[in-house]
């Protein structure tokens, strides 16, 4: 690996560290007024970071960041005003207060948004109106809390600056020292955030952005992660607000204004969405530009210019400054996705697979039967699942077949938990899972592969498998080991650093199956796994399914009759949402009634 490559891989660590040091060193060298103004840019960068984690990484455009920021600012300042009079120190009261308030309010709002499963549009608009509501309420909101006076549109004044020492003699930090303090705190938050987002927590958040359903099918409680991530971002915004209060010594409702809210996505977009360091770059560039243009720009035209800048950014520079730099740098680096093209055909070694399955059995226990009792699902006047009672056991594969619209996929989706049935029950080894959330079923032993390959396109092949393995094992070393085994079984050893999105359709199908195997499921549900596969691949898949069925319960929904025949398992024919016939494939092939419904012949249609 060349130096350039190593530097590129650690760019998020090296460059911010250098920038932090540079800022700390230069704080005392620059003009105090510039140091004072630059402090606010860093604070805005921190606010931008809070949006980047929810939007760039979490995929939810929150327009409520300035609400958390403002609330954090007000509450942090209330704490500072009251406590600084007693203890001298302002920082240790203001910052935690701002963080807690921002975090709690974000958690509450996030809980409503995510647990209600609002659409993306509804979520964004609700977050926006939350900010505007605070703006409207804060205009007339008057309250005295101890020595602090929240004075409606008169704002709150006499907020103490940054005081680090204790006692009566403690003095407010100079502009240069204030800048150093804010830089140090922001750097700490940045590196903590980067660490979190490189770890499991952040990986799961990335996965939710890329494919929330798949994340849930891997057993992650998606909504809990979303709320936690949002609360984290609210805490960061609240912290930024508390810093802002100490910096400005004065707050008024304009902190909740539309103009203020508009700046946050601009910082993020200018710097680079999802890059975490980008918002600081964006805030620095925007702040520096207005400073350079002189005080005049702050007056009349700033809003106008910013509005136009936002439009231009969205139209022409989606990845921002860091994104553009990264793209330019990558051109001089070897493309890790090249390996995707050199991948050979997948060949399943039965012995390797068996070893994995035995090991999984030792860890996760024996295979579990899946049963449905009078399962009933209706959409308006259509009943795709009409009182289906079926029992699936380990030993040999079970196939569900039937003509288009027979209700095969609907039945499967009801078992998985994507559809909530109106009647009947689904049990896994006797445990009633009928109305359980998907992730809970996965923990009960269910593994699912949907018809389309569901892989996390921006993550590498290795990360895809790892995140699946970690969901079950909750242990890094064990997850590494399982990932390695599955990687080599699928023959993806050379492709482990390839982004999943660069794989071919067939390779993605195998990767998806590999992720299901990583879960060591006790019941496996496969929805048309052979769709889009070549003859050879279908043959391999058939072998895999047959081996799998010896150790777990396997249910396959399939169109491909030839594939079903090679499975040599039990076959159930569904027709108009009901069980039509059962038996082995040869008997069913000879059955006139089955042929009738497949060919659409009159009598039994």
């Amino acid at each position, binding site marked *: 690996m060349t130096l350039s490559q190593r530097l590129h891989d650690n760019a998020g660590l090296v460059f911010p560290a250098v920038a932090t040091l540079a800022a700390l060193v230069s704080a005392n060298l620059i003009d105090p007024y510039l140091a004072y103004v630059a402090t606010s840019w860093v604070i805005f960068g921190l606010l931008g970071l809070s949006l980047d984690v929810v939007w760039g990484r979490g995929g939810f*455009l929150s327009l409520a960041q300035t609400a958390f920021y403002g609330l954090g600012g007000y509450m942090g300042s209330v704490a500072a005003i009251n406590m600084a009079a007693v203890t001298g120190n302002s920082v240790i009261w203001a910052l935690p207060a701002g963080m807690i308030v921002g975090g709690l309010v974000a958690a509450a709002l996030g809980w*409503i948004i995510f647990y*209600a*499963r*609002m*659409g*993306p*549009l*509804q979520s*964004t*608009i*609700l977050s*926006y*109106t*939350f900010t*505007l*509501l605070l703006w*409207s*309420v804060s205009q*007339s909101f008057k309250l005295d809390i101890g020595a602090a006076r929240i004075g409606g549109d008169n704002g709150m004044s006499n907020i103490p600056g940054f005081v680090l020492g204790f006692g009566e003699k403690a003095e407010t930090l100079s502009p240069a020292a204030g800048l150093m303090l804010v830089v140090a705190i922001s750097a700490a938050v940045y590196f903590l955030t980067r660490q979190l987002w490189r770890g499991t927590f952040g990986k799961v958040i990335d996965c939710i952005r890329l494919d929330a359903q798949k994340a849930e099918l891997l057993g992650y409680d998606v909504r809990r992660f979303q709320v936690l991530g949002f609360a984290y971002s609210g805490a960061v915004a609240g912290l930024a607000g508390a810093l802002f209060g100490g910096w400005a010594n004065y707050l008024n409702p304009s902190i909740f204004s*539309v*103009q203020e809210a*508009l700046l946050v*996505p601009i910082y993020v*977009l200018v710097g680079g969405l999802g890059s975490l360091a980008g918002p600081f770059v964006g805030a620095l560039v925007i702040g520096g530009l207005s400073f350079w243009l002189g005080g005049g720009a702050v007056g*009349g*035209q700033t*809003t*106008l210019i*910013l*509005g*136009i*800048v*936002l*439009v231009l950014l*969205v*139209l022409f520079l*989606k990845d921002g400054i860091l994104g553009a730099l990264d793209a330019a740098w990558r051109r001089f680096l070897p493309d890790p996705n090249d390996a995707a093209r050199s991948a050979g055909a997948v060949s399943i070694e039965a012995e390797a697979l068996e070893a994995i399955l035995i090991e999984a059995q030792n860890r996760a226990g024996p295979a579990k039967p899946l049963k449905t009792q009078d399962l009933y699902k209706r959409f*308006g006047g259509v009943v795709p699942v009409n009182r289906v009672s079926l029992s699936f056991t380990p030993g040999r594969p079970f196939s569900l077949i039937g003509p288009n619209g027979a209700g095969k996929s609907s039945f499967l989706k009801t078992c998985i938990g994507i559809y909530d049935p109106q009647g009947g029950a689904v049990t896994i080894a006797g445990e009633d899972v009928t109305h359980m959330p998907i992730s809970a079923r996965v923990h009960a032993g269910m593994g699912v592969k949907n018809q389309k390959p569901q892989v996390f396109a921006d993550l590498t092949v290795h990360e895809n498998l790892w995140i699946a393995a970690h969901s079950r094992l909750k242990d890094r070393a064990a997850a590494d080991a399982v990932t390695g085994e599955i990687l080599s079984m699928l023959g993806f050893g050379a492709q482990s650093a390839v982004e999943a999105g660069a794989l071919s359709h067939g390779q993605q199908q195998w990767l998806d199956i590999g992720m299901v195997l990583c879960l060591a499921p006790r019941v496996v549900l496969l929805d048309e796994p052979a769709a889009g596969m070549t003859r050879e691949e279908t043959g391999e898949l058939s072998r895999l399914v047959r081996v799998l069925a010896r150790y777990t319960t396997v249910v396959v929904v399939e169109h491909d009759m030839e594939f079903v025949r090679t499975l040599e398992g039990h076959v159930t024919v569904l027709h108009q949402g009901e069980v039509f016939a059962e038996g082995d494939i040869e008997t069913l092939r000879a059955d006139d009634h089955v042929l009738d419904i497949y060919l659409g012949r009159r009598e039994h249609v």
Partner: protein
Amino acid sequence: MEIDYLATVLLSSLSSAAILLIATIGLAVVFGLMGVINLAHGEFLMIGAYTALTATRMGVPFALSIPIAVAVTMLIGALVEILVINRLYGRIFDTMLATWGISIAFYQLAVLIFGTVTPGIGMPRFNVTIGDYSLAGYPLAMIAVALAMAGFVYLLMTRSVYGMKARAAIQEPEMAQAIGIEAARVNTMTFALGCGLAGFAGAVLLPIVPATPSMGFAFVIKAFLAVVVAGPVTLTGSVLTTLGLGGGASITASFLTSVAGDVFFFLITAALLWLYPLGISARWRRKL
């Protein structure tokens, strides 16, 4: 409490709901037919108001200034669609951000051109008397205007060639392309129509809501919420939500304070979104 007082509260609340519906319809049309939330909707309302104001000051009768306002906003709307929106088709958040930028730019332009305070125009004087209470007639007339607007949009969508094309383009985009409907042109038309409706709203409400650069913000919060809560069946849905939310907030406001009305609006919206996370009409069979 007297029955007369209750009647006036109900009637004036109904008129606030009607005013909200007038301000919302354009947004609902654009959202329903293009899947785009136009965050600059409020600024189009403001442009309509300023156009009508400028026209009346130049001696044009108020009634005639309304079509002028519609024409101006439609033209600006078409330009915005061609220059910005149609390059972002299918990228809903980018569209929102871009229209947000446009909104703030228009706002600032209005501040630069007109200043922050402008004189209103006199309200056409006629009163309605209920018992001891007398209500200004013009706001009550808005109930009829709102009904007329909703009826106009409904007829336009169901009876005109454009309306059919627009509905086809949103319901089955590929099929619509295949039978020769040019989605881009239909979208330009739809967006212009939405902006024109906003312009109409700004002009017709001018006697009630004086033109100020920030008047858009005040309206659109509720308009956005009404549309988003309404969900995919935007027209019928929005009529219901503006009536329920707007009317409810207005009743709350008349018994408590206007801030309480806003809070009521927000909380009920959050509750409705909790119950219907994709809007109240997400499971309806009808399409308009």
